[in-house]
């Protein structure tokens, strides 16, 4: 039930590899890494959620804050490899409409 967040810098894109479960206990850790990057201007960030099997509304809160910060700073982020269960939470709440999400790759196809 822990969360780990690693930042990989790949040319001009920063990739945040998140693994574990995102809930009220672990969300602050994600927020502490993601928010400073979103507040800097001109950052292009990919948040890789391949190894996140569980997320609830506290995770949504972090991504909403990140979206707000990015609008002000001119940075940009996308979520990638989002698992079905996690994607469902974005879908039910309507946030999949405004947050750029690439679902998990299945059988080599997107």
């Amino acid at each position: 039930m822990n969360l780990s967040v690693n930042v990989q810098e790949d040319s001009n894109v920063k990739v945040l590899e998140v693994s574990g479960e995102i809930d009220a206990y672990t969300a602050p850790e994600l927020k502490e890494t993601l928010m400073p990057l979103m507040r800097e201007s001109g950052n292009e960030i990919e948040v890789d959620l391949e190894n996140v099997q569980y997320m609830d509304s506290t995770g949504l809160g972090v991504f909403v804050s990140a979206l707000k910060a990015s609008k002000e700073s001119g940075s940009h982020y996308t979520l990638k490899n989002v698992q079905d269960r996690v994607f469902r939470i974005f879908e039910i709440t309507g946030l999949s409409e405004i947050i750029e999400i690439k679902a998990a790759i299945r059988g080599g196809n997107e």
Partner: protein
Amino acid sequence: MEAFDYIEMKVPAKAEYIGVMRLTLSGVANRMGFSYDAIEDLKVAISEAVTNAVEHAYEEKESGEITVGFGLYEDRMEIMVADRGGSFDLEEVKNGTGPYQSDEPVEKIREGGFGLFLIEALMDEVKINNKYGVMVIMTKYNREEEVDMDDDQISTIQ
């Protein structure tokens, strides 16, 4: 009265126990034969309810505990999550909840407020009592048994 098994746990009102509750629920729901997807729904719902209780305790500067009860019925699970903090304005909470509407500007989206909405979306019945502290009672039916009940079988019974 309908027969049922009842399991109750008390945990400190701290965020680190939310995951423990989720794991416990997962075990109980698995024992009852809930499907994988239903168990995942239940996990989100109980986490949202326990998170609310933890935040509530924090706002009230209480170091209280949260009581979680599982009612195991033949066809459903009833989950009760209660904290003993002061009550809150339910209407106000309900007004601040709901899905994102596409005409809403990003700056206006609430970072919180999705919790109660998710509980209502993922569970079959939700009741909230805030007379003494806050108590959320939510029910999910186990529909596994209905899967192979097709039209033909129903007409045979009739």
